[in-house]
């Protein structure tokens, strides 16, 4: 009987421990489609802006190309493709979300398109501290199967004053000490790029990266909230 209790206690302890540890997941387990389809080229669509900052869209768009290239993908030059899309009358990516994406294969030759949504782009001034919150939501969709190949949702909270302001638990908290607060406060782009590098840590590497097709078992902290997982 005592033994029985002991084992129950043991199992309980393990359960407790596993709940405490950050949930890890492998790239292959989370994004099997990436290894099946192996997209080589990515077309970055103009971001969907759901934040209150009207100019966030233009600024954010300049920060995605570089991190994606470093992840090993061929990225179509955004300044060109966004202009072509404008000429074709596509101003709002919102309208494309549920449409077949084969057009992008035909016109650009892109294997996948990247939808990005800026959820939050807030600069909040407080008496002793000011923080910048960048929340993004990314989805990489295949132009052949229309399926979601990879996705990420995340928040970066940047403490612009270097004080002791806390951050949300749900997102990643990055504290950056900025010496010149006033001049740096308005320039979000470096932080957005930082947010992008964070986001891309879970993305399997593309063909131009030396780790391409070797990173299936690489683990990363699964940050997707449980609630979001069910409504794919």
């Amino acid at each position, binding site marked *: 009987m005592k033994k029985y209790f002991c084992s129950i206690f043991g199992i309980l302890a393990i359960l407790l421990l596993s709940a405490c540890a950050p949930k890890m997941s492998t790239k292959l387990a989370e994004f099997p489609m990436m290894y099946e389809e192996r997209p080589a080229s990515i077309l970055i669509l103009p971001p969907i802006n759901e934040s209150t900052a009207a100019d966030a869209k233009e*600024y954010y768009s*300049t920060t995605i190309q570089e991190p994606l290239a470093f992840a090993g993908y061929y990225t*179509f030059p955004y*300044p*060109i493709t966004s202009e072509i899309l404008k000429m074709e009358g596509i101003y709002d990516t919102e309208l494309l979300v549920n449409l077949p994406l084969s057009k992008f294969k035909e016109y650009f030759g892109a294997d996948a398109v990247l939808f990005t949504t800026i959820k939050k782009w807030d600069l909040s001034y407080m008496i002793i501290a000011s923080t910048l919150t960048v929340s993004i939501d990314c989805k990489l969709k295949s132009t052949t199967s229309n399926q979601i190949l990879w996705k990420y949702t995340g928040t970066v909270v940047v403490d612009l004053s270097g004080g002791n302001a806390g951050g949300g638990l749900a997102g990643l908290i990055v*504290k950056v000490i900025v010496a010149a607060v006033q001049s740096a406060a308005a320039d979000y782009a470096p932080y957005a790029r930082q947010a992008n*590098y964070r986001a891309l840590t879970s993305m399997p590497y593309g063909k131009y*990266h030396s780790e391409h097709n070797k990173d299936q078992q690489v683990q990363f902290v699964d940050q997707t909230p449980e609630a979001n997982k069910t409504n794919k």
Partner: protein
Amino acid sequence: MRKLYLGVFFIVLCCLAAAGCAPQKMYYFGNYSNTLYSFEKNQNGESLLKHKQEIETVITESELRNLPVPPGIYAELGYLNLKSNNSKEAIRLFQSESQLYPESRHLMDRLIQSAKSKNDSSAKESANEDMR
């Protein structure tokens, strides 16, 4: 005092993490994203010129370091040339992009076509036989 140490440790960790995220060996991007950002912010001749110069720097620096020119860079410089009616140079750059990154061929062929038609029409206007 202990808190301070912890704080310093945390900052160092953050720096390491940030540095680890951006591999430096694959490509040389220089200030590309920053000048592009400045151009988006203030669209004028000055910021455009700076961005164009930065793209040229990325190309020369990449060659110096024996690195491939990053995706889209040749194409973007070609596009800027196309806009300033320098079709010949534009075509050369689009071809460079296409050779370096086969994924871009489809789009580059399109751009080369439009550069050629632009070249032809401007050639006719100036009645310059050499342009053909």
